[in-house]
């Protein structure tokens, strides 16, 4: 059964089918919400916001028009708007990892030094992505983590395909620039390690 057939049945009152429809997208949408929130250290709210997204979608099912967008694109748009409105509420709250209850844990066999370096690296990337303008961040997450193509991203962000290309280029370039000090430190550390041997 296609998405549109399912939507039609749900509109006619077969609500139980919505659970089946959700199962097709729940992992993708949850991953998207998770990545959008992760850069702001708010990933603990991912499940709540994901369920809010699906609930909103159910409530607005009558406004869904297949000719305008596919169901997945429509869902991603709702998810993005839901996350953005939540992020706006916490605009200035750059919560440290410890406060949001997440302390990255490394495997037991990993040395403490490596754990610290790893956490530092994760934080640097997180901050770099969080510093991106909202559209660049969304485009990057949709492309890198959700593996959507340019056209789908363009539909979700309501941009042209060429704008999406440009957004992605600028986002990757900006992340690279922000992470450059880390590479240099890394190279220097490696160089010092080699000379001390």
């Amino acid at each position, binding site marked *: 059964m296609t998405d549109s057939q399912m939507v039609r049945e749900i509109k006619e*009152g*077969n*609500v*139980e089918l*919505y*659970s089946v429809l*959700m*199962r097709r997208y*729940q*992992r993708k949408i*949850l*991953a998207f919400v*998770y*990545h959008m929130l*992760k*850069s702001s250290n708010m990933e603990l709210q991912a*499940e709540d916001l*994901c*369920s809010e997204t*699906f*609930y909103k979608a*159910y409530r607005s099912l009558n406004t869904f028009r297949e000719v305008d967008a596919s169901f997945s694109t429509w869902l991603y748009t709702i998810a993005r708007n839901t996350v953005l409105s939540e992020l706006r509420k916490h605009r200035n709250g750059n919560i440290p990892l410890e406060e949001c209850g997440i302390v990255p844990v490394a495997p037991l066999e990993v040395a403490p030094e490596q754990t610290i370096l790893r956490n530092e*690296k*994760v934080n*640097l*990337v*997180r901050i770099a*992505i969080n510093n991106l303008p909202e559209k660049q961040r969304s485009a*990057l997450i949709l*492309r*890198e*983590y959700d593996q959507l193509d*340019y056209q789908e991203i363009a539909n979700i962000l309501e941009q042209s395909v060429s704008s999406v*290309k440009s957004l*992605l*280029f*600028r986002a*990757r*370039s900006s*992340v*690279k620039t922000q*992470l*450059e000090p880390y*590479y240099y430190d890394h190279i220097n550390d490696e160089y010092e390690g080699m000379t001390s041997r």
Partner: protein
Amino acid sequence: MKCCEAQESFGLMWDVPSEDPKRRMLEQHIATCTECSAEFEFWEESQCLIHGLSVDVTELQSESVNRQVMDRIYSESPWLIQDKSQPFAVSGATRRKLSLWITACLMLFCISFFYLVMMDRSDPPIDTAPMNGILPTGVAGIPNVFPQDGNYIIPALNSGIIEPLVVTMGPTHPIYWMVLSTLSVALALYSLRRLGRIRR
């Protein structure tokens, strides 16, 4: 390919299929140019770090979202909950047949009711004089005490086999029939509604 041209393409290189001629040209250039190769390493490292943040959502997490949403929908609209505890499952064909039967019975009831109210004027009501006042006492053995209609007639003692006493039940237009039929109409309507709500 020139260096500036190559460096402008680094940012989108991962989105281009590996067999694309543009990508091949770029890879060839990176293999030959040390400056671009060094620059490209930064890009690659950056991509690796971005992918390092990737998380895999577990089935358990996504299923919990599903449950949350369905619970919320059902708590706000409890009438949407389907009654799964019903002891018998009604198939689509049976449901249709049942609906047809109930509708036919309803039609029959409506038509006969309409006929009764509007059409049936054949027998005008018979005027019967009310029996009241003081009735004279019947005396056994005197058959000519109450020769009138409507009263008991005590048979003569010498009449042979005594006829059994037949008691006629009244009233002539029983109200309980109407009550029963009204109840069945209500039941029929209720059944139709329930049948309509059962998932197709």
